């Protein structure tokens, strides 16, 4: 009898413990940067929606501003204390994924909800390593008033860089302190632009650098032509004199600028003139940036199931997506584009469709594990070109040999 009672009590105890363990909410740490400041309330609402639908999961939100987010993340990962979920942008995602710092999430989320392009960007060898959350892109923004003043037609989707050059020259002629165009000569702009001319930084199987190919040289040539010579249309760093490119544009001193859609709120607030956008013109074809923010799960996390649920919701739950659209906080990466019509209806700019059209030409960053070292070498050479006379061919030959010497592959 005693034995039965004891057994019964043990069973009850075991049952109680199990039930309470199941009912115990799981806490997930979430490191995040894109909502720091302006969109924090929106982010917190999104999390509240998720927690309501999933009462057994709690989110411990850790927001850090963009500038230091990656230093902090690297320290926590290096210190063996990585958060369960962490946000990534495309530039850094590859560095983490190629080092095995992102957990394999294949089969843990509903892939159909996401646009094919973004899924491809976060998958490798058929495995999924991150879940897309939001995206933005870069377009060409132009100052309608300056175009009117110069008496030339506005840019349209058929334009190529040659048309840009002509228009920029016409606008530059309007005055000494007026500039036609601005696009920094940087690693990012370079790898993206050469894609539009059939070029690339690496060969197809990533075994060799192809930095000084003729297609690349042609693109760099065009970029340099804009910033050198007597009537150059683009201001050098000297001529910017500490002002930012956005400042130049909002002051009405810049005809065209290549920048991201996150500029819209600032330009809406500060520009006293009319402005609109088009897809970035291409060389042989168009090529645009694709900036996506994605969420990854740490391989050392013990709560991968819950974490996957969370990031799936952040990327595709209809209520959460709606919150994002209402707050004009970048764009959701969902497959169903019809939901995005509400974005199109806000102006300025009038031609918001260009934002979506840009996605068709998105260029992914080179999948190079040592992209940090490569971008530094390339950036060092490119950044000085506006002040010297080195030709595009010489510069790219120099970069090619430096990259080869550095043994990055």
């Amino acid at each position, binding site marked *: 009898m005693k034995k039965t009672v004891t057994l019964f009590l043990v069973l009850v105890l075991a049952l109680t413990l199990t039930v309470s363990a199941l009912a115990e909410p799981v806490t997930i740490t979430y490191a995040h940067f894109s909502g720091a400041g302006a969109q924090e309330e929106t982010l917190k609402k999104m999390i509240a929606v998720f927690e309501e639908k999933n009462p057994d999961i709690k989110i411990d939100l850790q927001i850090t501003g963009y500038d230091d987010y990656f230093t902090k993340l690297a320290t926590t*990962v290096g210190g063996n204390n990585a958060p369960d979920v962490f946000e990534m942008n495309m530039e850094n995602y590859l560095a983490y994924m190629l*080092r095995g*710092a992102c957990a394999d999430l294949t089969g843990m989320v509903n892939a159909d909800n996401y646009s094919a392009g973004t899924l491809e960007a976060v998958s490798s060898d058929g495995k999924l390593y991150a879940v897309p959350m939001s995206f933005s892109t870069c377009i060409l923004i132009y100052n309608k008033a300056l175009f009117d003043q110069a008496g030339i037609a506005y840019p349209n989707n058929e334009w190529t860089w040659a048309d840009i050059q002509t228009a920029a020259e016409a606008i530059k002629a309007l005055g000494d302190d007026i500039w036609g165009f601005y696009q920094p000569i940087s690693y990012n702009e370079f790898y993206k632009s050469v894609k539009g001319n059939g070029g690339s930084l690496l060969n197809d199987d990533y075994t060799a650098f192809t930095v000084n190919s003729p297609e690349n040289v042609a693109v760099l040539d065009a970029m340099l032509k804009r910033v050198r010579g007597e009537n150059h249309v683009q201001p050098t*760093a000297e001529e910017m004199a*500490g002002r930012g490119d956005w400042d130049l544009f909002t002051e009405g001193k810049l005809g065209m600028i290549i920048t991201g859609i996150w500029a819209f709120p600032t330009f809406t607030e500060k520009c006293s003139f009319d402005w609109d956008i088009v897809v970035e013109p291409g060389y042989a074809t168009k090529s645009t940036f694709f900036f996506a923010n994605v969420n990854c799960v740490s391989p050392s996390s013990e709560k991968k199931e819950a974490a996957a649920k969370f990031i799936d919701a952040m990327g595709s739950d209809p209520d959460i997506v709606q919150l994002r659209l209402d707050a004009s906080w970048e764009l959701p990466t969902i497959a169903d584009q019809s939901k995005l019509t509400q974005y199109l209806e806000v102006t300025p700019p009038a031609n918001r469709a260009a934002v979506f059209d840009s996605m068709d030409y998105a260029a992914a960053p080179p999948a190079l594990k040592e992209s940090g070292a490569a971008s530094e070498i390339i950036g060092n050479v490119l950044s000085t070109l506006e002040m010297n006379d080195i030709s595009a061919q010489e510069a790219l030959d120099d970069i090619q040999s430096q990259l080869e010497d550095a043994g990055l592959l």
Partner: protein
Amino acid sequence: MYIPNTAGKRRATAVFLLPSMIGVVVFCLLPILASAVFSVMDYDLLMPMNTMKYVGFNNFARILTGSEFPKVLGHTFTYLILYLPLILITSVGQALILNKSFKGHGLFRTICYTPVITSWVAAAVVWQWVLSGKYGLLNQMLSTFGITGPAWLNSKEWAMPGIVLAAVWKDTGYYALMVLAALKSIDPSCYEAADIDGANGLRKLTRITLPLISPTLFLLIVINIIYGLQVFDSVLIMTNGGPGGATTVFLERIYKYAFKQYKMGLASAYSWILFALILIFTAIQFRLQRKWVNYDA
């Protein structure tokens, strides 16, 4: 000080020293030892620690034989050679002025301190304007003397001197406070004999004041060598190592290798090379101090 070596003295010494030593051992020595271990490993920050591989002196060899190292050495030394004399002159000079009393003394003193509390972000904006090639204040002033100023921060040769100017501006007030504290500790009676002899200001300065504050001057030199070789914030914010890698310095390289390329082993090796450099310079200073530093009260 002569105190007999009683148990009480030993106990007191321990009590006085222990808090500081515990801190130094746990939060300085241990991490430093860890970084020594890292320096002989191939350690990728983002990968689990058990994937570290021992590579002996590979990291050191890679750095020392690379083409980047002489440039980094050159840039860091340029900074130090330009910065050290300037900061000594300006901070001692400013402290001497602050030690006098005159009308508006308090306000002047607070103004001298404002660069120290101005954020580097704001300081960088104004300095980028001051040092601007075309519109900058400095070049405009130079042109009134008929000199065409260089493009400063946008020129490979003049970027570092530009940074030095901004750094001297920012740090003078900080070090001047230390020199001032030392000046205030001088017993005025030290000057009585000199005044009776009718010595003028300059003699009093060189024969009495400077020797009396020489311990603090020594501190200033040693500290500025140690910190100068580790210059970082000013470089990062004014030029970020540019233009085209013309202002790369040790700390900037170490930071980028550690947190942008995740090569913690390489970054640690770099720090130890820097450490060796700093150690040599500091040891020389300590040797030399017998010749000129005066500790008599």
